[in-house]
């Protein structure tokens, strides 16, 4: 027996095992340094500012509204996706363009692994830049005092979409190595986003909800203010986009030049898993239902997401009646009290006058327009519930979204909603008698009967009958009621208010 045979064998395996991740990290570092993505990032930054940030500055200082265009309708993805797909295609086509495919295939490391390192570097640059840009965007919003909660789930969807674009573009470049691969991937990605937007504008349900540019029924007030953003649909979108990315990356490992049989079999499994995830996500989106606070997917829904957001209201007074709003709406408290004060003065002394105004969260609608949400008067003592998020379009000032969003329009819409609630018309046009009294009350609030059709035609509420002129039996009855004078009119109303609210009063029974 010699010393050589007696000596223990050198433990090589641990060193070899540790060398693999080290070599992979080194390869990734090289790819990060050689990547073309940083060259395009300054341009994307400019476009991000122009397309995603700039249009949002005209919105009210509430996260949901500020981010409606760039997150809800996916413009941050549109700004990133095509460029990322193009550059990824350029990186993916590198071996083919340089005719070094055989050289790389003969290297110690499988070509698939080298390709994944190149893709990973591209995706790290792209997703990292996306997160940085969105972080800066939200930091600017925070600095501007934007209220509410940021839509973090939509940020995650955007980052995953960028990764999916990079994977799909990379696959295009790898399989079609040409100088034209990059523009084809970029414009193909852009076309996909255009079609996604088009479908998103049109379809408010079904599989189309999976598209990250579709905001129908899933990005509305008052998410992030009164209740949380429901994560159901974003989770399905994450599955969808991650599935696309995984499937595209799996495809890279299928050709013979990618690696050995085991690696190719593993790549096939990855591809199938990606396709399955994508299909499952589409199936889940097809089961989505519109809930009061957003899109609910039964298989993904967590009841904890339905918990309301706690807040300490900010209050003021309108004609001595306390008006309390969510602090996110504090900038509009003065406007609200100013708009409600004439209404409370008009109904002062009548039975059932609200003793308090409390803001409630607006309910989701199937399309993007939030309408037909009335104020309600409930409880004992009566409290006026004000879904201010439903009339955000009419908020005055620079934050107002509606082209006619002036203080006057806001006052008039609130007066209409108040009178409508006071006569007990509910979530409908109301009886002719209720409509007539509503018109008379609005006249008392300072809105002449002749001008009332223009208030109704401003937009919401959708239940209000649209007329061009203040004519017909309803307006005639309203004019008769106002002709009684304030004292007699109020006395008549006090005597008949219960019958009016129950819908038993007819137009002929009005004075």
């Amino acid at each position, binding site marked *: 027996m010699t010393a050589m045979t007696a000596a223990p064998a050198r433990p090589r395996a641990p060193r070899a095992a540790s060398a693999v991740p080290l070599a992979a990290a080194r390869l990734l570092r090289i790819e990060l340094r050689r990547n073309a993505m940083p060259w395009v990032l300054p341009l994307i930054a400019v476009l991000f500012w122009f397309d995603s940030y700039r249009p949002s500055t005209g919105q009210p200082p509430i996260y949901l509204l500020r981010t409606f265009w760039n997150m809800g309708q996916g413009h941050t993805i549109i700004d990133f996706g095509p460029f990322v797909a193009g550059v990824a295609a350029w990186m993916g086509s*590198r071996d083919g363009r340089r005719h070094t495919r055989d050289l790389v295939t003969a290297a110690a490391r499988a070509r698939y692994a080298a390709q994944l390192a190149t893709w990973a570097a591209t995706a790290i640059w792209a997703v990292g830049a996306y997160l940085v840009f969105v972080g800066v965007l939200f930091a600017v919003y925070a600095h501007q005092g934007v209220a509410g909660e940021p839509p973090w789930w939509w940020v995650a969807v955007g980052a995953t979409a960028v990764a999916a674009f990079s994977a799909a573009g990379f696959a295009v470049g790898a399989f079609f190595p040409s100088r034209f691969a990059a523009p084809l991937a970029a414009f193909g990605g852009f076309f996909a986003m*255009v079609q996604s937007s088009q479908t998103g504008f049109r379809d408010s349900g079904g599989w189309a909800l999976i598209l990250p540019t579709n905001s129908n029924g899933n990005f509305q007030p008052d998410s992030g203010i009164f209740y949380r953003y429901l994560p159901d649909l974003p989770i399905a979108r994450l599955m969808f986009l991650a599935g696309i990315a995984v499937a595209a990356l799996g495809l890279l490992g299928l050709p013979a030049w990618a690696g050995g049989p085991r690696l190719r079999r593993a790549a096939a499994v990855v591809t199938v898993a990606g396709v399955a995830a994508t299909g499952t996500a589409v199936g889940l989106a097809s089961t989505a239902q519109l809930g009061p606070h957003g899109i609910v997917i039964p298989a993904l829904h967590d009841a904890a997401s339905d918990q309301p957001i706690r807040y300490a209201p900010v209050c003021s007074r309108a004609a001595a009646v306390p008006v309390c709003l969510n602090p996110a709406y504090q900038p509009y408290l003065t406007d609200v009290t100013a708009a409600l004060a004439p209404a409370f003065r008009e109904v002062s002394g009548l039975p059932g006058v609200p003793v308090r105004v409390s803001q409630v969260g607006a309910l989701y609608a199937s399309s993007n327009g939030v309408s037909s949400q009335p104020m309600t008067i409930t409880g004992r003592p009566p409290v006026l519930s004000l879904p201010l998020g439903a009339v955000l379009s009419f908020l005055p000032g620079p934050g107002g979204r509606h082209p006619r969003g002036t203080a006057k329009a806001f006052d008039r819409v609130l007066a209409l909603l108040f009178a409508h609630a006071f006569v007990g018309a509910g979530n409908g046009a109301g009886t002719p008698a209720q409509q007539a009294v509503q018109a008379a009350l609005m006249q008392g609030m300072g809105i002449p009967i002749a001008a009332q059709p223009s208030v109704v035609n401003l937009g919401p509420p959708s239940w209000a009958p649209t007329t061009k002129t203040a004519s017909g039996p309803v307006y005639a009855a309203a004019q008769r009621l106002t002709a009684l004078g304030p004292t007699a009119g109020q006395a008549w109303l006090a005597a008949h208010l219960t019958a009016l609210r129950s819908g038993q009063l007819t137009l002929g029974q009005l004075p």
Partner: protein
Amino acid sequence: MTTAGVQSSAPVAGRQPARPALVLRLPWLYLVSRRVPAALGLIAGLAVLLWASLRWHWNVAGGPAAQEFIPLAIEAGVAAVVAVTTYGPFGEPERAAGRWLPYLRLGAALALTAAAFGALAAGAAAGATGATGATGAAAGAAAGGLAGGTLAMLRNLAGIVGTGLLTAAAAGGAFGWVGPMAYLLVTEVALTGTTTTPWVWPAHPAHDRGAAICASLVYAAGVAVITVRGTRNSGRNPAPE
């Protein structure tokens, strides 16, 4: 042995300058090196896409401006293809040896733009005719959904090709597509709002003089820069690989 015999030797075939086949050889080699045949195929494919979009009324929801967005995106795609053909694989040696290079670049840019316009105009006319049943090509293009007709298409295409050529000169021929894509995104925002600047020429009517001048200036600048300087592929300023 003297050198007298060498001087009087018969001229080799390569030195004969007058034969037409040899005159065309250099442009042909240049076009092949720039993958122009493949580019023409892609342009034809995009023209078919334009035909299909007009034939079956693919539109983006919105007003009249939004409805011209898909044709505009196709025009930008064509411009990107034209811009990417400027990428040359030879770099500095070609610059040093090719005295005809500026003329070849100029000719290729002009010819490809003309071919692109012809293909798109044919696609638009065919699509509009199929959609409306009209027979007049130009009139049909306007009536069938291509806003502004072929005149506006020529303006838009030329301007966006100009942005692509300028981008190719600045960032490298392989990245020439970035300019048309960026311009398309800017235009998308402009089309959704009210824009007055003539630099967003697709948002203006076909006969708007300011928009036409701006598009022409950009195209002229792009062609001039690409002719004189070429793309950013020299050894001093390598483009991203």
